[in-house]
């Protein structure tokens, strides 16, 4: 159930994850998830950097940006980061899938 990203960079292992505390810290530092669609080039590195707060809070921003630059498959990475960022909120929501009266939906993409 734990949603995290793991990778190695220059022989060091990294685990990226969002906790409620790291999301709060990011918001205090001015991060606004609503701006992801408006300013993706600015906000995506910030989102990536925010994922370091939980397990690697003392990593320098310069190094984080360097890792972001070298990381492959960015398209999928962005999707995963957004999913991970949503996790602390999603786990607070009651699972009401089985409830009567809910509107069902399907995706065509």
């Amino acid at each position, binding site marked *: *159930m*734990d*949603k995290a990203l793991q990778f190695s960079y220059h022989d060091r292992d990294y685990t990226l*994850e*969002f*906790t*409620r*505390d790291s*999301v*709060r810290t990011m*918001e*205090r530092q001015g991060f*606004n*998830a*609503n701006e992801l669609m408006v300013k993706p080039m600015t906000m995506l590195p910030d989102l990536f950097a925010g994922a370091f707060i*939980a397990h690697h809070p003392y990593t320098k921003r310069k190094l984080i940006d360097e890792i972001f630059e070298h990381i492959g498959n960015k398209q999928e990475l962005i999707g995963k980061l957004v999913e991970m960022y949503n*996790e*602390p*909120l*999603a*786990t*607070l929501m*009651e699972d009401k899938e089985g409830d009567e009266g809910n509107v069902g939906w399907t995706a065509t993409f």
Partner: protein
Amino acid sequence: MDGNVLSEEQEPSEPISLSEIFEDACPYYMSIGMTPEQYWCGEPALAVWYRESFRIKKERRNWEMWLQGMYIYDAICDASPILRPFVKKGTRPIPYPSEPYDLGLTKSPEEKREKQNSEDKKVMDEARMRMENLMVSMANKLKGKGGNTNG
């Protein structure tokens, strides 16, 4: 206006701050046993497990309360013979069960069989003793009668 999904009169809503949502929900999670450390810095999925654990606890408590109600109901029913007005002299309440209901949790099948055997043996011993007493008393009566006729 019909067909106008986005009303012009509505003001644009404020963006929702996740921090506020987390802070609002925090006391609830503290109340079901999560520590602040677990809530803020732990794995987010912990909240789901704590909620599920709380649901199980609530259900168990509900069953316990129901069981207590059953004991009270049974106790009243057992005592009811003496609670009636104009009850006959010598009426006694049904004794309260000597042990709790068997919920099938505490005893293994062997223990249950052993208990049943010992209860059966107790009943048999009691019946045998009664029979012996009856036979002794009948023998005494016969002896007495025989004595009278002879004497």
